[in-house]
């Protein structure tokens, strides 16, 4: 922020008047079910936006289909509510057309991982600078209660009255496989952590992915409560901090030790276990192998890790595209229609 209270626009250096959370709210009535976790995510995004110092007109929210995908209607920025699963494709087009824009993708577990699995994967591996937030409630809400690709095996629901026989997919594993340059996880019920993660995602340059555990109080209420409730969360969740050992527990006495390629929980001091045997988190590791191991840790065997798993830099797609265009102009000259039409072998009839 500059001294006169004006923000420097992060994308093109223009100054903008200091915005507030209110500036990002629309006049549209928010229509999620009362008590839905989506409200919390919307509130945190609206809270973080003014802090970023980017003019509203430079921000675009793009969504697919599902409860979460109504999100753009509630953000007073540019927005595009597209078709099921394809938001990353539309967002890619917007970003490539105008790399000055900050482009967000709002998606859900069905939207991103089922019908849109292909686009999700390819947007991440191309390293287009998109900020993808996946609202994972492990259920289909808008279609009223069918199982989703993240529903746990055996879950009983409307379309699987005897329990699902679909093995769930881990969204983080997919993101690592696609070599996303930013991968994080947060939760609707922890606004402070959530806003911090949204800010990290916003500031990352490249394809960023944030999974948010989000409660659907109508069709899958309490999906995450067995590890996230206040009384148990310190024992059952693990806050990832770059450069620090992976320690958790009320008394900070437990940690993650890597035995070969297999993680295990150790109790510090017990059977001679030492702090220096605990894995130290490195979100900047070039290879996503360790992040992948962390991303697969599930309750009850392990504490559920929250935070930034991976944050690395590599050239973005749009940057390389712009580079090719500049090179083409430098070597061939700026496009000239007369020359274009006359290219190839021509002849004249008199």
């Amino acid at each position, binding site marked *: 922020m500059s001294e006169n209270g004006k923000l420097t626009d992060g994308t093109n250096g223009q100054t903008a008047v200091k915005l507030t959370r209110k500036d990002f709210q*629309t006049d*549209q009535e928010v229509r999620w079910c009362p008590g839905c976790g989506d409200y919390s995510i919307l509130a945190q995004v609206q809270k973080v936006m003014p802090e970023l110092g980017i*003019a*509203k*007109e*430079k921000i*675009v929210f*793009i*969504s697919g*289909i599902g409860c979460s995908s109504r999100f*753009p*209607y509630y*953000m*007073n*920025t*540019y*927005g*595009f*509510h*597209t*078709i099921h699963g*394809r938001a990353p*494709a*539309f*967002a*890619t*087009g*917007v*970003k*490539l*057309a*105008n790399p*000055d*824009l900050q482009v967000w993708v709002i998606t859900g577990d069905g939207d991103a991982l089922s019908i849109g699995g*292909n*686009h999700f*994967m*390819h947007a991440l591996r191309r390293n287009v600078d998109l900020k993808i937030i996946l609202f994972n409630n492990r259920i289909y809400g808008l279609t009223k209660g069918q199982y989703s690709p993240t529903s746990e095996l055996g879950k009983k629901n409307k379309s699987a009255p005897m329990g699902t026989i679909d093995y769930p997919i881990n969204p983080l594993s997919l993101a690592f496989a696609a070599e996303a340059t930013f991968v994080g996880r947060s939760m609707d019920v922890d606004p402070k952590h959530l806003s911090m993660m949204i800010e990290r995602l916003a500031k990352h340059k490249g394809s960023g992915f944030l999974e948010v555990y989000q409660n659907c109080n109508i069709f899958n209420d309490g999906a995450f409560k067995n590890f996230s409730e206040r009384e148990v969360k310190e024992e059952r969740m693990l806050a990832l901090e770059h450069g620090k050992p992976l320690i958790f527990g009320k008394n900070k006495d437990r940690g993650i030790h890597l035995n070969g390629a297999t993680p295990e929980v150790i109790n510090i001091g017990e059977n001679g276990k030492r702090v220096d045997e605990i894995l130290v988190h490195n979100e900047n590791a070039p290879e996503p192998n360790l992040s992948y191991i962390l991303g697969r840790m599930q309750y009850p065997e392990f504490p559920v890790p929250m935070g930034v798993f991976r944050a690395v830099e590599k050239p973005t797609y749009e940057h390389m595209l712009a580079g*090719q*265009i500049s090179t*083409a*102009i430098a*070597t*061939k*000259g*700026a*496009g000239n*229609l*007369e020359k*274009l*039409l*006359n*290219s*190839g*072998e*021509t*002849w*004249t*009839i*008199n």
Partner: protein
Amino acid sequence: MSVTIQEEEQNKTRPQTKAEEVETVTIRFAGDSGDGMQVTGTQFTSTSAIIGNDISTLPDFPAEIRAPAGSLPGVSGYQLNFSSRDIRTPGDEPDVLVAMNPAALKVNIKDLGPGGILLLNTDEFNDNNLKKAGYPSNPLQDGSLSGFRLFQLPITSLTLKALEASSLPFKQQERCKNFYALGLMYWLYDRPMEPTLKWIEEKFGAKPEVAEANLMALKAGFNYADTTEIFTTHYHVGKAEIRPGKYRNITGNEATAIGFITASQLAGRPLFYGSYPITPASDVLHELSKHKNFGVKTFQAEDEIAAIGAAIGAAFAGHIGLTGTSGPGIALKSEAIGLAVMTELPLVVIDVQRGGPSTGLPTKTEQADLLQAMFGRNSECPVGIVAPATPADCFRMAIEAVRLATHYMVPVFFLSDGYLGNGSEPWELPEIESLPQMKVELRTETEGFLPYLRDERTLARPWAVPGTPGLEHRIGGLEKQNITGNVSYDPENHDLMVRLRAEKVQRMQQDIPELEIFGKSSGKVLVLGWGSTFGSITTAVEQLQEKGESVSSAHLRHLNPFPRNLGDVLKGFETVIIPELNLGQLALLVRARFLVDAVSYTKVKGKPFKVAELVGKIKEYL
């Protein structure tokens, strides 16, 4: 590169014996897909164009990249028609067939007219190849070819002999045989070798031994024909009366790509092309990706849906959003086209049609996606549809598609097909000044801005793109309230919006040209066509008109909406015949719209209409 040939230079290589004048010749080169027949065909074409013939071509290649050598599926062909008069088709049947192996003979011989010239490479007529082609006996010996003027030459051995001095490996020497065959044909049809010699030098400049070998093979073929007099006579096809101007030979797919680049320049908006590789549309992607110096952004997407999704995203962000594919890809893009209709964004969808349904005949032509373009989406989902009539016309219609899409804020289909895309013809280069003025203005004024407030004349909504201060708004696939663009479930509003979207497309009529009639505006028969059938229809109708028959033709380049005078045009004739390479899709639309008892004449063989077929059909109604 511009080629001009001095008369003296031409004379140097001209055979001394006098050539017999002929008006029009159709040659088909056929061989294994690795034999270089496409190169041979395009070289003959370029040379013919340069010396002033009118030309039209039809490449015909297999879907397999390299089917087993000598097999029937591996046969690749290239037909070209060249003439001293105005021609519009690649010719019904070849006068000359060059067959480089038994399989090529087997696949193509049925098309060669009686008494046609048949040149065979006898080296390839061994037991193994005859078996692969399914010949029970050797056609060179069993008399089955007695109805043709047969020339048997060991082209492979002759090529190798000519290259004795070459240091190239045997296999590479053998690959020069297509140039040997080309040399023979150049002598037979009195063509200069210079343009091809020049082309070889440029193409293989980095590999002098290869360039040298090809040059030697070409010259050897030419000289062999000249000195041995195997062809007792040779032919000359004079200059056609072509409108003065500057020309280049162009395929439909190249003209399409160049047309869209030109359109984006004329509109003053950058071009974004999202595409997924598919035959026969991929060449558009290849061509566009070469022109990044125009700021063209090409995006090879993960699939057809992502390709159009990105194009729509780019359109939202102020680019000319373009996506291109063939029929199966359109099926995948349908939902996204619906979104572009709902969000009223300018988008152009190229469909280079091919034989279907499903994977169908990927390398063969068909016109059977008209109804898919027209209706192939859920609910009432109108789009504009334009269709080029010839390879060079793809340029003009690409500009037209962008003009309509941006002017009316509506998706527009560009219906090309495999025949247009791969076929080529001379293109008279237009003067830049003569191209349409179609500069697009984006909305920047905040005062009075509403996302769905419409222009009175066109009903277009404003194009307000992200990045513009004060115009932040949200669009999407849910029904929109007219004017505000807010989500609306109101029944009255939905009814209004469905009608507005239809009306908007219909109103394009005020900006599209009237349908022209080729011939008199009334009479016995009107032949109504669209798309790539233009050449055959016009040639057939012209032949009949020259005989004094009461027949006219009209060709639709705008299929939705139709030109405003179409109904009146139809009324002038006793019978309307609609030839199409489908089962009567335009006929269905015309019959429904105008209550005209049109005759539907159809063919779905993956090949264009022959002029003779059309003449025969039209005669039934004269």
